């Protein structure tokens, strides 16, 4: 049997969403970004809302997200994506607006914009990729870098006495009355990918309700920045990141989830 005998309509079990372009991803092999991109685009395709979606890419590894996502997008200044999203959403309150941001962008330089967009209850979705490191600039300490974790600017490990504690941004924004749905997910296993996709769908559906902001943290690996093989980085993530950044819903329909 040859390949052409297998490539038939009835044998199709998976296809790439049309909303992902064919541009070669600039992400490192093993990185979670590509999977999250795909989940967002699949949700937009399944909801059939491409004509009403505007995305915002950040500064960081995903600065070129607009090259991979085949939808209208704006590229924001470092940390300012929630403000850019606010400007768009206020002008087009019936459109779907989402930001896609890393931990440095969202939880360091953009802390004020994040907190205030959440507090105002902007009807947008924030997708927050937390890998505890600055990937694009070469692996420096991020606000979410774990205690003792080595980075290029904490070569002997993060000393919290000197460099502060890792910032639990997601728990923080969940406390604000303006957030409607707050969750923390991962994409390193199929089951987690499915849960992340479900969360993205819920977040986009929530925009229609106009009840506030949906905030999805995705704890992800950065095998290059962590100086690990992809499989090892996922294992390290499970053993070190998840105990601190525990997965699951934090706030659902405006109510904190009791644990």
């Amino acid at each position, binding site marked *: 049997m040859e390949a052409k005998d297998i490539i038939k309509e009835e044998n199709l079990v998976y296809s790439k969403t049309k909303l992902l372009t064919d541009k070669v991803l600039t992400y490192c092999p093993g990185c979670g970004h590509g999977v999250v991109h795909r989940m967002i685009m699949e949700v937009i395709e399944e909801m059939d*809302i*491409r*004509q*009403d*979606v*505007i995305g*915002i890419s950040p500064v960081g590894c995903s*600065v*070129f997200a*607009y090259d991979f996502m*085949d*939808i*209208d*997008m*704006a*590229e*924001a*200044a470092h940390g*300012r994506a929630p*403000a*850019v*999203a*606010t*400007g*768009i959403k*206020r*002008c*087009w309150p019936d*459109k*779907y607006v989402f930001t896609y941001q890393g931990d440095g962008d969202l939880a360091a330089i953009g802390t*004020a*914009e994040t*907190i*205030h967009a959440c507090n105002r209850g902007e009807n947008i979705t924030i997708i927050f990729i937390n890998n505890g490191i600055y990937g694009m600039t070469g692996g420096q300490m991020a606000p979410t870098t774990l205690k003792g974790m080595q980075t290029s600017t904490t070569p002997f490990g993060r000393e919290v006495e000197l460099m502060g504690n890792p910032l639990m941004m997601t728990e923080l924004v969940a406390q604000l009355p303006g957030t409607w749905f707050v969750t923390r997910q991962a994409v390193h296993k199929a089951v987690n990918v499915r849960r992340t996709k479900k969360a993205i769908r819920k977040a986009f559906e929530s925009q229609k309700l106009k009840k506030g902001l949906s905030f999805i943290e995705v704890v992800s690996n950065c095998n290059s920045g962590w100086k690990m093989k992809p499989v090892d980085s996922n294992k390290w993530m499970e053993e070190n990141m998840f105990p601190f950044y525990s997965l699951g819903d934090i706030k659902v329909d405006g109510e904190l989830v009791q644990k």
Partner: protein
Amino acid sequence: MGELRLMKGNEAIAEAAIRAGCDAYFGYPITPQSEIMEYLAAEQTHKRTGMVFLQAESEIAAINMVYGAAGTGKKVMTSSSSPGISLKQEGISYIAGAELPCLIVNVVRGGPGLGTIQPSQADYFQATKGGGHGDYHLLVLAPASVQEMADFVRLGFELAFKYRNPTMILSDGMIGQMMEKVELFDAQPRAKEFDQSWVITGTPPDRKKNVITSLDLDPADMERHNLVLLEKYRRMQKEEVRYEEIECEDAEYFFVAFGSSARICQKAVSIARGEGIKAGLIRPITLFPFPTGVISERAGQAKGMLTVELNTGQMVEDVRLAVNGKIKVAFHGRMGGMLPSPDELVNALKEKIIES
């Protein structure tokens, strides 16, 4: 004739914005321009025209809200004063780089640093030479009256959309705070159609996606983008220069001044004329593009020029470039909110030009 009102300069800007069909305002309070946002809030713009009004958490957030909203093709503005405009510079650079239209009002106060809340023209360099990082220019309009505060809002939006470039109204605390009679133009409706060649409103099936960005890592592409911008600035220099000449026909000595300084110079011209000195005033209205041509031309008939500014000497550099050594160009400036009297300016003209 349009509706006549007695208004503060800042209020005139706000009312003009509503009438110009502005879709959204994002700002942060700072003296001496807070009346702009207070007026918009009191007018309940969302009820009056549907215009969005939002007080942001910072000037940085406000300008980035403008960036996002401007990307959708809507008519968007912000306002601030000097320290706040400094904070906005990163965003302004992105807006210029991404070629988005918007209106930015700077009601200038003295600096550097926290400086003073008194009027100043010390942000001339920042406004006309770029301000933020990278090669770019704003269209810069300098009103000298409350009437022009109102009129330049409409003009500013027109120019911003004509060139897809941010326009700045460079005012100051004096014009922002003083009250004058103003004839308001009739309200125009907010736009309903948007240029689908570049706006981000969601991708309809009949066009490709649009992306608002200022990023290009390919050196050849980035250079090409810089050249596109340069060509745009040259077109502005060719087509958009605006200025006013007062008593210039037979003048031998010229004041060159913009905004509030120009008003004081106007009085100085009449005092000088009363003393038999043939004085005139050239008032640049667009500070970028700068009226180089008229200043260069008038230098042919002039014995000297005195540039008057509320700073330590900024526009005078552009005046000297225009004059190109043909005649003497002197400078007289006051700082910190101090204003020169017309007599002081006549004396300065005598001392620094006529008798030197």
